[in-house]
């Protein structure tokens, strides 16, 4: 009881201190410095209309590369921590007929929607990470509905590695053409889709990078789900 009371008192002090600090940051007022520059120049500099994805992929592409690396390390780490010689799914109850039939119907649509999200990353809210998570949701649905379902491991692991390398490769091509890593050569040099801004074939390399990221995130999260759902079987 004493411990809880002490915790609550110290947390209230921390909360008061945080609120005092935040009182100096006015809510709802325009505080943009760099943000306004991005908003003013995003169309001519990147060809995308979604400023957030343009920042994530184009202006601050290094962050995204690091983020993809973090996710890759997490997926590898989960695989390494849960590694056993013989692991299988031990679920015993099949989903009800409504669930299995519904899953069969729903999975293609969920996947299609995931692909839609990451291909239209430069036009609509979303991008590679939400799209990839949606695709992983489709695989989670399959795992939940069918007791014997397993993702095709060989294909998944290969896809994961290849798209990861493709991201670095796109960056290295930019280095060769434009002089710095992740240089957007499709937009800056070719002006591909310059009269097409706001439609699908525009946005420089953002759709390409986001397709890569979407596939990578989708396969990685599905792999994490797969690792966590399996248990060791003793013979």
């Amino acid at each position, binding site marked *: 009881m004493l411990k809880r009371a002490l915790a609550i008192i110290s947390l209230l002090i921390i909360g008061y201190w945080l609120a005092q600090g935040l009182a100096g940051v006015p809510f709802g007022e325009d505080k943009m410095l760099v943000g306004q520059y991005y908003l003013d120049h995003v169309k001519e500099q990147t060809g995308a209309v979604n400023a957030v994805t343009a920042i994530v992929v184009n202006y601050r592409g290094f962050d995204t590369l690091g983020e993809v690396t973090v996710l890759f390390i997490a997926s590898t780490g989960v695989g390494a921590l849960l590694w056993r010689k013989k692991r299988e799914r031990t679920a015993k109850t099949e989903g009800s007929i409504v669930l299995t039939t519904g899953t069969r119907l729903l999975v293609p649509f969920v996947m299609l929607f995931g692909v839609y999200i990451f291909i239209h990353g430069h036009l609509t809210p979303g991008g590679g990470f939400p799209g990839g998570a949606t695709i992983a949701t489709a695989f989670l649905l399959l795992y939940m509905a069918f007791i014997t379902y397993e993702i095709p491991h060989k294909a998944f692991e290969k896809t994961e590695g290849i798209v990861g390398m493709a991201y670095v490769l796109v960056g290295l091509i930019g280095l060769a053409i434009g002089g710095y890593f992740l240089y957007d050569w499709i937009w800056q040099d070719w002006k591909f889709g310059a009269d097409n801004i*706001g439609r699908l074939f525009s946005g420089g390399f953002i759709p390409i990078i986001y397709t890569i990221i979407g596939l990578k995130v989708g396969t990685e999260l599905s792999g994490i789900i797969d690792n966590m759902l399996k248990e060791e079987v003793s013979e």
Partner: protein
Amino acid sequence: MISVYYFGAITLILIGLYAVLVKKNLLKILIGLSIMETGVNLLLVSVGYVAGKSAPILSEGIGPAQAVDPIPQALVLTAIVIGVATTAMALSVAIILHEKYGTLNVEEIRRLRG
């Protein structure tokens, strides 16, 4: 008077911190960490809000002058993914701890050491 969004974000951070400090079950501690992370993300996006402006997608009717700050949103996009990655790692550690020790109580696990 502090804005309700800041207040909510700080409250979420404090609730998460409380769970980390007081709870004994490892899963509850991980839930606390996730709540804390949500609070931090909410705080970051609410800092970028500009009253009366719209999402930073420059379509018809929304020019560069009518959009909110896009940088915190890009930052939070990164932070969410990193949060998911750390949660996945922590959950697999919890699975292993339960396999080895048969319990998720952090005090008992401390006693079993050695």
